[in-house]
């Protein structure tokens, strides 16, 4: 008979080896984590949930994301807007954002650092015409635009990292609802 439960605690127990890959549920954020490669204890991978409270989060203030947030969907929920800062570059990191409350001040999603020019991306609008894009990794920021009510409920962005740069796909209701700037 197979196992019936995973260890649940704040940190991984043990370290990986050629024959062992530690797995546990992190009691701090309730996500399943494993060390799938190497022989240390630092390279944890989160096993993605298909749903549940741990995979979605409503943001009402500025937030600096970490690698432990990867795979999450964030709902942006303060009319006055705020900045979300991406974590340090690492292959496979991915995040999704939806506008839950239309902004009167911009929501921004910003690369870490100065910020670093490591972002390329394209914006697609449901109506209204040609949209902003960056076809080189020279951008730093996605802006859900407050001016003239451009940013709308349901506007969204998907971000993926290749370990060196970020790739963004942004979807908006109205022309000019978002920009990618550097």
């Amino acid at each position: 008979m197979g196992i019936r439960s995973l260890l649940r605690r704040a940190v991984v127990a043990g370290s990986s080896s050629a024959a062992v890959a530690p797995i546990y549920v992190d009691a701090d954020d309730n996500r399943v984590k494993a060390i799938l490669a190497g022989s240390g204890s630092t390279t944890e991978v989160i096993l993605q949930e298909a749903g549940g409270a741990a995979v979605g989060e409503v943001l009402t203030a500025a937030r600096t994301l970490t690698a432990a947030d990867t795979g999450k969907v964030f709902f942006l929920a303060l009319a006055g807007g705020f900045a979300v800062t991406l974590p340090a570059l690492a292959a496979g990191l991915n995040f999704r954002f939806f506008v839950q409350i239309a902004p009167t001040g911009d929501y921004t999603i910003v690369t870490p650092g100065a910020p670093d020019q490591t972002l390329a991306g394209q914006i697609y609008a449901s109506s209204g015409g040609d949209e902003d894009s960056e076809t080189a990794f020279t951008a730093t920021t996605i802006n859900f635009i407050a001016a003239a009510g451009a940013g709308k409920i349901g506007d969204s962005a998907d971000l993926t990292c290749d370990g060196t740069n970020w790739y963004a796909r942004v979807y908006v209701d109205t022309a000019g609802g978002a920009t990618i700037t550097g």
Partner: protein
Amino acid sequence: MSGIRSLYRGTALKGYASTISAPIYVDSDDNRVKLVPAGSGTTEVVLQEAGGAGVAEVLTAARVLTAADSGKTFFLALAGGFTVTLPAVAMGLTFKFFVQIAPTTAYIVITHADNRDTMAGQIYASAGSDEDSETAFTADQIDFVANTSVIGDSADFTCDGTNWYARGWTNAAGGMTVTG
């Protein structure tokens, strides 16, 4: 010492969560890995597969989805169309749909009866035309429009626990609508 070699497989989990234990099993009804990662109860979360039969399904008739279907991709495959009903709202639920057979009667993806006008959404067309949208949580369905929607049209749905966020991608102008 080598690690564990298998998960318990049955129709329901064994035991319940505690501060030091998170029950995990393979549900023998749908072959998905489920666990209770939080609390002390029995609220299950599905672990998302990167591929395999458990993560995709071809639909040829109306279907009422449940939370246990979260993370799946559904392929809509009856020219005569049908309705897919989303489950009751819950944080983090996600679904994706692709048109496998172009409809002569609409495919409809509709919110649960208990949460009808809870959807905002936007449609994007390959043709570059202005498309439908709902910028408040007042819609209840996305339609893949008969005789306009084509193979490859798609939509995804995400829930924040209260409302649904829908995104639709279509080839032709008017191929999809968001309505309330």
